[in-house]
């Protein structure tokens, strides 16, 4: 069976899709491997590629990590890698090794399909070289999302690689009808199959408090036992108390960034649905505020950055499913089995 190469842009939910497909394939009696030819240097956590760690644990893979992630893309990757041919050879070698005693290897692309094209190591080229079939994944935000999906499809084809189809992933509920009724027919008119329209599920897509803490560092003053709360929205609390409540009430399970000296705002926030409060400027709050946060079970994180820097850093926060998050893993599988035509994908691999 051919390999399946899942490619798409950052934040499109590639890992969750790979995980779901892998679990379903395994249920079908297939021996499944996982391969990520190009990983991202985990700049913040400084740890091993987390996607690989997740797959190893969930799928019970014992292959050597260095053979599962071959290269690392970074902003200055050209300083590190020059010999295109040698790298490509290594990737093929590793793939063959992983595929040797397996029915199917699921490959996961890096942040964007075109990354490392200057060395001929872009996703399309790698797919052709290892003979994998590509599955294009994309989010649905607006009409440009359809354009991007078409572009990725045509790019992969231009590299003479085979495409199984596309999946719109993490689609917000209100856009479901439009994706199904407008984008999908548009793509299909152009000869691109759409194999799934997957509704967004916060349980898989939203980052947890733990991920915020990892990116921001700082000191956790309260709510140590609630690091797995989902953060679905981020607000900055800088307004007067009078204007704050209506604003804070409009969003659920949110992170609120405010100054440590804004006891009133923190207390107002604690009256609304909140997953995390980030206190900026290194200003310690009043003990009663900390006590109140503990009572409410809301983590209180003190950071030494100013508000702007804090928000800048938050761009690096994204949801990583952890091996121990059984509910998320189960859900990743359920949504794929329910909303993705995985049988058609399997057919394309045969």
């Amino acid at each position, binding site marked *: 069976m051919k390999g399946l190469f899942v490619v798409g842009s950052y934040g499109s939910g590639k890992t969750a899709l790979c995980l779901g497909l892998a679990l379903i394939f395994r249920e079908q009696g297939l021996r499944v491997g996982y391969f990520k030819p190009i990983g991202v240097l985990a700049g913040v956590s400084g740890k091993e590629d987390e996607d690989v760690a997740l797959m190893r644990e969930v799928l019970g893979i014992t292959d050597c990590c260095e053979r599962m992630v071959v290269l690392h893309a970074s902003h200055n990757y050209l300083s590190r890698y020059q010999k295109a041919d040698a790298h490509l050879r290594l990737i093929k070698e590793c793939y063959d090794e992983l595929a040797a005693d397996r029915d199917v290897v699921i490959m996961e692309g890096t942040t964007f399909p075109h990354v490392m094209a200057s060395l001929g190591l872009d996703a399309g080229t790698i797919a052709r070289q290892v003979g994998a079939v590509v599955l294009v994944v994309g989010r649905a935000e607006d009409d440009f999302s359809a354009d991007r999906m078409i572009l990725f499809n045509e790019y992969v084809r231009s590299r003479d690689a085979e495409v199984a189809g596309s999946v719109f992933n993490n689609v917000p509920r209100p856009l479901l009808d439009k994706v199904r009724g407008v984008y999908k027919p548009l793509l299909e008119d152009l000869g691109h199959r759409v194999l799934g329209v997957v509704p967004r599920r916060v349980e898989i897509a939203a980052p947890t408090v733990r991920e915020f803490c990892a990116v921001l560092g700082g000191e956790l003053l309260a709510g140590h036992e609630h690091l797995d709360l989902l953060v679905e929205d981020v607000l900055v609390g800088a307004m007067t108390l009078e204007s704050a409540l209506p604003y804070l009430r409009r969003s659920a399970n949110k992170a609120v960034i405010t100054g440590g000296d804004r006891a009133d705002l923190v207390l107002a926030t604690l009256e609304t649905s909140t997953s995390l409060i980030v206190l900026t400027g290194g200003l310690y709050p009043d003990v009663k505020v900390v*006590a109140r946060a503990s009572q409410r079970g809301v983590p209180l994180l003190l950071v030494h950055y100013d508000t702007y820097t804090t928000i800048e850093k938050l761009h690096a926060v994204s949801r990583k499913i952890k091996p121990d998050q059984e509910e998320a893993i189960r859900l990743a599988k359920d949504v794929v089995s329910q909303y993705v035509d995985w049988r058609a994908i399997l057919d394309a691999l045969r």
Partner: protein
Amino acid sequence: MKELESLFNPSAVAVLGASRSRQKLGNAVLRNIIDSGYPGKIFPVNPKEKEIEGLPCYPSVGAIPDPVDAAVIVVPSRLVKPLAEECGKKGIKHLIVITAGFREVGEEGWRAERELLQVCKKYGMRMVGPNCLGIIDTHTPLNATFATGFPLRGEIAFISQSGALCLAILDWSLDKGIGFSRFVSLGNKADLNESDFILSAAFDPHSRVIACYIEDVSDGRQFLAACSQATRRVPVLVYKAGTSQAGARAASSHTGALAGSDVAYETAFRQCGVLRARDMAQLFDWALAFSTQPLPRGKRVAVVTNSGGPGIITTDNVEARGLEMARFQKETIDRLRERLPAEANLYNPVDVIGDADPDRFAFALRTVAADPGVDSLIAILTPTAVIEPEETARRIIAVRQETPDKPLAAVFLGGPEVQEAVSQLSKAGIPSYTFPEPAVSAIEGLTRYAQLRARDRGRVVTFDDVDRQRVREIFREVREDGRTVLLATEAAEVARAYGIPVAPSALASQPDEAERIAKELGFPVALKVMSPRILHKTDVGGVRLGLNSPEAVRSAFVSILDAVSRHLPGVTIYGIQVQKMVDPGTELIIGLNRDNQFGPLLACGLGGIYVNLLRDVAFRLAWQLTDTDIQEMLQETKAYTLLRGFRGEPPKDVDAVVEALARTAQLARDFPEIAELDMNPVMVYERGLAALDVKITIDT
């Protein structure tokens, strides 16, 4: 509130942590109880002592042979809980925990306080404090505090969230000669709070007025219920601290709880008949007036003065504070004319002029006091060479005794000249002031309370034709979508389920659908963007009005999407609401905002786009909202004048507005998860009304 009688008048008191050392609070409390002349039994408890201040000391509460009603606890904080447990076993009914180191010191303290409360609950004990000064009852008499000094016996019950303020007021009152029935320091209010003590004092035969200093209310609903009941018996005066932004922040830090909005406090006070003092001086000016004066029958004030200037100042103040200058009967004026000099002013304010002696002054005062058109009296004296302040004071006291049913306030301007006279007045129970303003303020307080008490409070209106099930379903769907904000179409459905008329509309996700809906509803229609993220649709180009054809609907659909994406890129649009255009009417706003302390606050006023500019809004709390409240609320607004037909316009359907307000309040009571609701504009017609835009935010 009979329950607290044995707290203020216990048969026996134990002092846990009593000490021999006069430097310790445990000694101060014990001596205060002894020195106050407390008639019951006193049991000091301290395992290390045999005798303290001449009383046998017990090693533990359990060792006390007699039953004990109340225990004062003055021990280190870690010992409080085990001792409370012992008290519970002993069958003690009340704890006064003076010890600090609980909620006010942070999380650990908060836990300890909660555990202490559990112990109290387990044994059915009621607790004052912790972290308080204690309580005083001057009629028992009992001084279970560590204050220095014992207040004069009087009829004012003073309840304070600040222990320090208690100490200061106590000392100040001794100097001013103001007496108290009770003194309560609330402390952390872990169990007993302001509402409990207000209600208890309302049933105390020795308390004629209740004065409170509070920073927050522990339980809004309890406060409303307690004060509604209390204010039917006695006046309740409240000074509420933390009204400014910075003050609220300070209060939040102090109490560790989010302050309710000042509008909500103001509304709550008004709805349950509490008089709100604007400063501490006013709180006690009022308290003094209530503790000594009868309630006036109306708001007509007569002023007698021996000098022009102060008379004018007083007149200005009477008008400004919503009182009226009395108009005398002809007989009164004739009688005054007989005895007063030609230069005197016979009309209110009566000026007996500078050469008046006590006789003339008393004659004028007696004459106007007898006038049936006079409800209350203000006597103003300026120390001239002939007035003899002390003699005049005696004459005023005599008039007071002749007309016991009309309140009287005295203004004796000056210093040493009038000092003795003022002291005589005060002893005779006539409040006297150095300047006119507080005197008028005192009469104003009395008058307002008299009006409040006479007012018919009305009844809570409810409707049976509401569809709760439908509302529950909509809220569930919204939550399942991970939202807190309802789409306008969903919100309109909620309003409709509660019988509030809403302009017909439906949600379209595509131009074709919009066109079809428009045809069904009939032209003209309006298109409005739907997104929980968009608060002000007009500002982002999300509203198109007066669309008369399918083509216009199509093109408006696309242009709204474009405009919104330009203003708010990345915001998810749920679709476009197609709404039938309705006829113009008088535009109102009806809103709800849930206050942290007092629950849903209903608002009504002039609607449309000028809401924020004109701020013509009146508020009421939805709990206990009566038909009288709704009528009064509406009458407070300028919108009411418009509704009744302004400048020849036909009057609008006020009854429909009253009903819509009552229904909105019922919705708020039935669904406490509604955090905010906004209907703006509500078009009011000669018959009926229609809400055009409904916004609702709920809790997850």
